[in-house]
Structures are given as C-alpha cells and as structure tokens.
C-alpha cells in the first residue's frame, strides 16, 4: 500500500464522510499558462486575474490570505517575457519574467551592468533566485526591492503592455506606494530596457541587512556617476531603498554631485544630503534615525565603489 492509500484508509476510518480536514493552504483559483503576450493580455482582461511570475512574493501572500486571486496567469511560457536581448541602441531588454539567476548569469548584463547582476544575487537565496523575476520584484513594489535601485541608476525604462497598446515610462515613475504601481490589473510589465551605459560611468548598489544573506534591506543605496573629460561629475543618480514608501531618487544628493570632482569629503557630504532626502519610517527593523544614518554611509560607500570602478582614488589630495 502506498502512503496516500494508507492515509486515505486511515482518514476513512476516523474522519466522517464529507468532512475534509486536510488543510488546503491556498484559496481556489484558475491557473492559465498563455504562450503569447496577446493571450496573456486577453486573460488579464477577465477581472480577478493576476500575473504569476516566480511566485516568491505572490504565493506566500496568497497563503497568508493577503491576496485573493480568481485566476493566476503564469507568464513564464511567453518567450518575449523570459528572455534577455540586446537592443538596437546597444542596450539590453530584460524580460520581466526572466529569473534573477538568469539575469545574474547573463553575459551582456555581467559585461555592461555588473551592479544589476550583483543586485539580482541579493534577492533571497539560491532557491529564490532560481524563481524570482525582476518584473516581480518591481511589480510587488516593496520599498526594499533590491533589484530596483541599480536599474534606476541605469536609467531603466519600463515597457508595459495593455488592452490599449503599449506604453513606456522611467522605472522610478512606476511606483505609487508600498505594493502599488501605476500598472493596471489589465496590463503587464513586458520588459525593463536599459540604455547602453555611457563612458566613463559606473553604478553600484549596497544594502544593509542584519544577516549577510536571506534578509530584507533596512536601507539600500544605489549610485551612478558619469564623468566628463576633465574628470568632473557630469551626471549623477542616487536611488534609495527601504527609506520611503517607494524606491526613491535622492535629488539633493544628485545635485551636490554634479559639477564636482569626487573626493572623500564630497562623498561624505553627499551621503549626508541623501540622508536628508530619505523619508524613512520607524519599524521593527530599524528606527527612522538609524535608517538615515545607514543611508549616509551606504551612499558614500556606493559612490566610493563607483569611483574605484572608474580608477579614481578619492583619498588623493584634490587639485
């Protein structure tokens, strides 16, 4: 007798007929696996439907009863959503459903967007990275989403498809609040497109977690700088995680960087600007003040990392 047969036998003796005591951890839902984007969009038009990518956020949320879903539309069967392609401009289009493991191993990403590969490797452990997608990380819209700051630093553009056609917007404009984006239930995120990184420029993302792996960032900071021919910062982006209702840019920090040469003193000051930009809450993982202090240090270190990538010694006396 196999185990299920044995169990059925025991159940039939002890459990009154018709009473199913087996705990079903999820509520009932339909499951669809479309093969094309058009099919996926048609399924999403049916009201109570929700996109399933890696399920590492969604299935846990459904089990906790935080989400009820009529129909799960598994988008992993749609080729254009799972691939990573180079674009005509020399950038890269990351399919929204490509797994973090796929992203971190992709050669165009490793070559031109190493901070994106590193960020993908921060999401959970190996088991989570094999399933979790960058699109899910974005659409789940946690302020702590680790893939987002490096993508914002690379000027990522979200490509969204819906019943009315497609639209594009800068990634940071997608976020409305914790768990909320401008993506409608009838729409889906198709890809995240990164322009080719201008030279010389660099991006870095650092987060602080109490545990080295498998933890949620108490604060995170991504930084991007581009230098002009004189070695002066011509363009800068600073994107913060876990210190506001959404992933956010840090305008004071960015303004302070442009037009300057990177020195230790400048990076420290920019860190303090980023702490001023931050809008952190106090919760069980950290107080607002603690998060601001973390932002100052993480921003400074991420900038120092960018400088190191560009071969700049920030300790050298400025000319």
């Amino acid at each position: 007798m196999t185990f299920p047969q044995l169990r059925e036998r025991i159940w039939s003796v002890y459990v009154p007929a018709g009473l199913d005591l087996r705990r079903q951890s999820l509520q009932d839902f339909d499951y669809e696996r479309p093969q094309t984007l058009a099919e996926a969009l048609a399924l999403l038009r049916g009201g109570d439907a929700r996109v399933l990518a890696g399920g590492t956020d969604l299935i846990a949320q459904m089990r906790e009863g935080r989400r009820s879903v009529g129909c799960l539309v598994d988008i992993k069967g749609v080729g254009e959503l799972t691939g990573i392609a180079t674009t005509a401009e020399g950038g890269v289009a990351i399919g929204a459903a490509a797994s973090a493991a796929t992203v971190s191993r992709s050669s165009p990403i490793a070559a031109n967007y190493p901070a994106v590969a590193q960020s993908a490797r921060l999401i959970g452990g190996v088991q989570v990275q094999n399933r979790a997608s960058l699109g899910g990380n974005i659409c789940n819209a946690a302020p702590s989403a680790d893939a987002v700051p490096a993508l914002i630093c690379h000027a990522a553009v979200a490509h969204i498809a819906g019943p009315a056609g497609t639209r594009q917007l800068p990634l940071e404009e997608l976020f409305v609040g914790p768990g909320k984006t401008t993506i409608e239930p009838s729409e889906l995120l198709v890809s995240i497109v990164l322009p080719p990184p201008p030279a010389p420029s660099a991006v870095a993302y650092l987060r602080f977690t109490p545990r080295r792996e498998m933890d949620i960032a108490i604060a995170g900071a991504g930084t991007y700088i581009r230098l002009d021919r004189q070695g002066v910062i011509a363009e800068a982006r600073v994107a913060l995680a876990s210190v506001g209702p959404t992933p956010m840019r840090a305008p004071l920090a960015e303004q302070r960087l442009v037009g300057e040469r990177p020195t230790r003193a400048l990076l420290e000051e920019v860190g303090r600007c980023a702490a001023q930009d931050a809008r952190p809450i106090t919760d069980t993982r950290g107080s607002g003040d603690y998060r601001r202090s973390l932002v100052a240090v993480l921003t400074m270190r991420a900038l120092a990392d960018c400088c190191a990538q560009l071969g700049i010694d920030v300790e050298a006396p400025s000319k």
Partner: protein
Amino acid sequence: MKTLITCTVNGEERTALADTRDTLLELLRDRLGLTGTKEGCGNGNCGTCTVLVDGAAVCACLMLAQEAPGHDILTIEGLATGDALHPIQQAIVATGATQCGFCTPGIVLSAKALLDVNALPTDAEIRHAIAGNLCRCTGYGKVVEAIQSAAAALGGR
C-alpha cells in the same frame, strides 16, 4: 477542484490526482507520498522543501503543482541508488553534519545543485549555496565540511 498532473519525478513519469490549489510540496508529499521533502515555514525562508527542478534548487512550497508538468523534478528519494547513499549523503553521515535531520534533505539537494555546476567550490561558495537552508541544530560548520568532502569524493579534487 481536482486535476490530473503529470510530471517527471526522480526519473519516472508520475501522474497524480491533485487539487488545483496544491503547491509542488503538497503534490510531492500528500499525493505522491514522497515525504522526504519537508515543510518548515511554507513561505520560502527555511529551505526544508528544497527540490531540484531541471537541476535548479527551488522551494517546493512556492511553486504550484500545476507548474510542474514538463519539468524534471528531483527529490531526496531520487538520490540514493538502491541502498547505496549518494556521496553527498554519505559525507553528511560520515561528518556528523545532521542532528534532527529535518533540514538535511534540503541541504543535500542544495549541495547537489552546487556540485553539479561547481565541482570545486570554496567555503564561501558553499555557504552561499546553502544560505537558503536553515539548520537549527548543527551550526553549518560540519555541513560545509561535509559538502567539501563530498566534492572530494565526487572527484573534484
């Protein structure tokens, strides 16, 4: 609702009558009787439910049974050949890298996924590979040691 699910488990094509809501973990444990895969947290944090899907370690508690068709699933039951334990299992036993054993199936499969692509891992690479597997008993030192000795036994060095 009930549905028939067919997928490859431990090299054999298996068909089970499952609930449409079943996770892969529920399919394996409750429908196929493969109780070597454990449920700890049910939300991706503990790794006791780790199985290999097409060679990659995943949490069976975060995957739907309905996603399984077309995939090749390896559970801890599929590792030994008859009574002969897999070298990773032998190393866990020989090193004493298990106490209550609840985490062990998951750790063994995470180790297999690692050694399949990296025959000579560093301690840091091993610790990264098992970061998603919690063990409340052994403290990881012996687990890392066991995976190193399994790598050696498998011919990595």
